[in-house]
């Protein structure tokens, strides 16, 4: 049973896919219900895994490994050469990402009630997307990782391009091309590693790259290792996205349907951070260490750049988009700090931003549904017509700017704690961003909730109701509980971070 649990988790959305596929096209209500139910099996399975973890079961018990593809005919040398296994595994880091994925997916499925047309296609793609995300975080070898990674790309392309706002096709194209380039770089790195070592297993590669194994074929030279590490960083920097590679993500945030942006900002961007931690840092610790300054530099750049641009946006969606770039900058800063506080802070920031961004975009969806706009000048005085909504918005904004007691505070605090230890100058420059963050978030929230009441928002009965409370309350609850009791995340991460620090030479 244990062995199949992970495969069951990853592929459990298939159940929902079959159910939705069997529905007639017009049954809007049933399709939406089934689509939501489809996200429940992975949710419960991930809860079950989590409870197993907390009751002390070793996560490695859930690993599965089955022979899958054998390239070439090199059995004479070693039957394991050029074999790609179907192998899924779990550790503390991936457990947290899995939980984030399943929770946000279920909530985004609820937020999808606003989808106006072609529900069937929407939910099918949505559930395929979930399989891809779950696979990415459990894959134990690079090829499998890449396959699941691409599996998130294609549904997302259609979801953005079909169900988005006015400029949706342009957004989906730039999503596809940027991510295509990113994944092409990723594929090249993966295949160079595979061709030169004969394996893609992450643990085996880590072993080989750090200890130096003997290669049957052409070796990987020292300078090539730097190149590969850098290429990993670039590939995932596109996904994250970091400053010069960010333009696609702004478009996606502005044009994709809000429920998909919840997934996109909440989980998909986080694959970039996960990849840097797992592969850049994990497989090439030595090389990563010497590139750390650059990582921090680009982190600070994105942090400030995103914050400055968020300051002047008139569309609330764009404020949030640039704020995402800015917050991903914090992740890079933490990852480049090379110490326990920094890395832990970065992972906290990933999770915290996932929750906050999901909630903010859920609220954006609600807002757009009511008013048909997200332009700040057109809004105003929402606090009168939608008091509960405005309350959530304010709370979420506070979390985003790092109010103590919310998740955002913990992560930013730890990142800066770590960074001041290792790169004090850059950290000092970065602090400016913290102030800017406070300014742009307060500006946006104030413009929306207070100020003079706009004619658009005069009606009374527009506040949150019924089902809409579920995502709002769950996400806000999580944000606050992580903020109050950070060990909720710290516990599972402990092992992973310790191993990471050991490889990085500790400090």
């Amino acid at each position, binding site marked *: 049973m244990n062995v199949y649990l992970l495969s069951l988790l990853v592929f459990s959305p298939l159940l929902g896919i079959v159910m939705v596929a069997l529905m007639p096209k017009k049954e809007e209500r049933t399709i939406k219900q089934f689509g939501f139910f489809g996200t429940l099996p992975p949710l419960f399975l991930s809860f079950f895994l989590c409870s197993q973890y907390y009751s002390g079961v070793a996560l490695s018990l859930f690993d599965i490994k089955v022979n*899958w*593809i054998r390239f*070439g005919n090199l059995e004479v040398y070693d039957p394991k050469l050029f074999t790609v296994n179907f192998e899924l595994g779990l550790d503390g880091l991936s457990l947290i990402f899995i939980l984030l994925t399943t929770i946000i997916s279920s909530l985004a499925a609820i937020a999808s009630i606003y989808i106006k047309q072609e529900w069937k296609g929407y939910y099918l793609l949505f559930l395929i997307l979930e399989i891809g995300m779950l696979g990415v975080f459990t894959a134990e070898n690079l090829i499998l990782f890449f*396959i699941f990674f691409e599996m998130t790309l294609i549904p997302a392309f*259609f979801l953005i*391009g079909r169900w988005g706002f006015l400029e949706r096709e342009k957004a989906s*194209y730039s999503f596809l091309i940027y991510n295509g380039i990113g994944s092409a770089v990723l594929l090249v790195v993966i*295949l160079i590693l595979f061709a030169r070592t004969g394996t893609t297993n992450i643990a085996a590669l880590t072993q080989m790259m750090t200890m130096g194994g003997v290669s049957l074929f052409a070796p990987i030279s020292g300078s090539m290792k730097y190149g590969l590490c850098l290429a990993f960083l670039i590939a995932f920097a596109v996904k994250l996205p970091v400053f010069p590679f960010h333009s696609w993500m702004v478009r996606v945030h502005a044009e994709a349907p809000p429920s998909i942006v919840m997934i996109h900002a909440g989980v998909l961007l986080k694959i970039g951070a996960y990849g840097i931690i797992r592969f850049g840092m994990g497989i090439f610790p030595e090389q990563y260490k010497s590139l750390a300054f650059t990582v921090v530099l680009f982190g600070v750049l994105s942090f400030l750049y995103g914050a400055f641009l968020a300051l002047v946006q008139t569309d609330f969606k764009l404020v949030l988009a640039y704020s995402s770039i800015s917050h991903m900058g914090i992740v890079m800063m933490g990852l480049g700090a090379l110490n326990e506080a920094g890395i832990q802070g970065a992972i906290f920031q990933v999770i915290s931003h996932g929750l906050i961004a999901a909630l903010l975009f859920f609220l954006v969806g609600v807002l757009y549904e009511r008013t048909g706009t997200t332009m700040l000048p057109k809004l105003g005085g929402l606090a009168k017509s939608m008091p509960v909504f405005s309350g959530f918005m304010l709370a979420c904004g506070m979390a985003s700017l790092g109010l103590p007691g919310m998740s955002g505070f913990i992560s930013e605090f730890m990142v800066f704690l770590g960074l001041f230890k290792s790169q004090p100058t850059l950290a000092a420059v970065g602090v400016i961003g913290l102030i800017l963050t406070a300014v742009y978030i307060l500006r946006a929230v104030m413009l929306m909730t207070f100020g003079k009441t706009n004619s658009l928002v005069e009606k009374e009965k527009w506040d949150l109701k019924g089902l809409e409370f579920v995502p709002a309350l769950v996400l806000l609850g999580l944000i606050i509980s992580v903020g109050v009791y950070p060990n909720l995340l710290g516990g599972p991460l402990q092992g992973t971070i310790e191993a990471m620090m050991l490889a990085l030479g500790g400090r």
Partner: protein
Amino acid sequence: MDWNTMLSYNWGAMMPEFIILGTAMILSILDLFWPKHFNRRKLAWLALTGIILACLSLISLLSFESVSILSDTFRLDSFAKAFKLLLLFGAGLIILLAESYEPQEGLHEHRGEFYYLFLTALLGAMIMSSSGDLITLFVGLELLSLSSYILVGIRKHDLKSNEASMKYVINGGISTAITLFGMSYLYGVTGSVNLAEMSRTMAALTDGQLQYIMGLAFFMVFVGLSFKIAAAPFHMWAPDVYEGAPTPVVAFLSVISKIAGFVIILRIFLSLFQTASGDVFGALDFLEKNNIYIASLAGLTIIIGNVIALRQQNLKRLFAYSSIAHAGYLLVAVATLGGGYFLMDTVWYYLLAYVLMNIGVFAVIQLLSSQSGSDDISILAGLGKKSPYLAIAFTVFILSLAGIPGTTGFIGKLNIFLGTFITEPGHFVLAGIMIAGTIVSYVYYFGLLVQVFFRPFHSDKVIKIRSGLYTVLIICVIGTIIFGVAPNLAFDFIHDQFGDFTDFISSK
């Protein structure tokens, strides 16, 4: 050669060829004597039966040791078996496609010719994959070429079809002449036309002068064959011919013809030039020294194919350029020799993927263009709403052509990449071009999907699918997905059946 030696040959090795030849003859006689009003569409089923029988006889031959008959001019080795299987499989699918062809003006009045010319072309390709001799190789090549010239022009009242046929004849004629000229040099250098014997002579050659002539021969043969596989800069004919020819013929050209082109390239290059020495000391082998030329042609082909495809509005022209690009990817495998470990299975697997996805795409194009009477990209518009299952099938093929994971196209590309990286120094530039080409190809492939899913449809005509075409679609979709998710089905098959293709050049 007396009667007894004739009888002593193991004619069973040629069984698949005999079956195809016999079917072609029966079809031509039937076509002659059947009354005019009789529907020639039924000939398709006879042709299909012939192909299936040939396939079965080939399968029964799989377990046999490799043999060569007719004084080593005809070989049935692992290479021949593997590629003949592909050819027969592809041909069977295309026959089904042709059976469902319902043009405005076209095949139905010439159906008879179509089927037996198709079979003779197939026969030519099979003989090529099985020949151990330059002469049989050339005869096979000509049989294939001549038949396909007529096939292209089979819509004889259609101006475009005529133009395409004319262009194809002239281009093909030139390329054949160049190839033959190159072969004559090879004969001059070695004094033999038997590949095995030639390879022995060439391996022993260390005279600089002769090696120079060998180089000339290499260039000419390579240039001539580049026409056949439509590699840049010798690709100009492909878009025009594809545009003018009827869709089943286009599928035939882009699949069978291409497989045959790679078969002859592998046959000649691997058996002759790989063993030949490239310098006077005999240290470097010839192909290793000269693979820069193959590599640059591969790079050029990928770039030209993908970049020009971006601007195409005609589906057939678009897929002409797309198939040029795919020829480029395959040339990468040839240029790098699969890194020494992955050549045969890489090329074979990629061609299998190519058969499945390309015939699938042409099936959809044939269906839509015969119903709307146009080849414009816009005939795809709204397919997702009008006929979702057809749209999903089309999406699978396109994703596979674009090399997205989960499809055969991805595994095929992956295999090629492995070959480029495994050697030291790796072929990084070539790999870079290939990956950049793939990204560029996303733009036009996904442009098609945008038409399918994001655009509204123009006509309300219900799409009727004939059973033959339906079968092709189902086989191609299932194949593309199955071999993409569980590629080991194919890999294990070739490794178990053919090993390392070690009997490739060893004579007898």
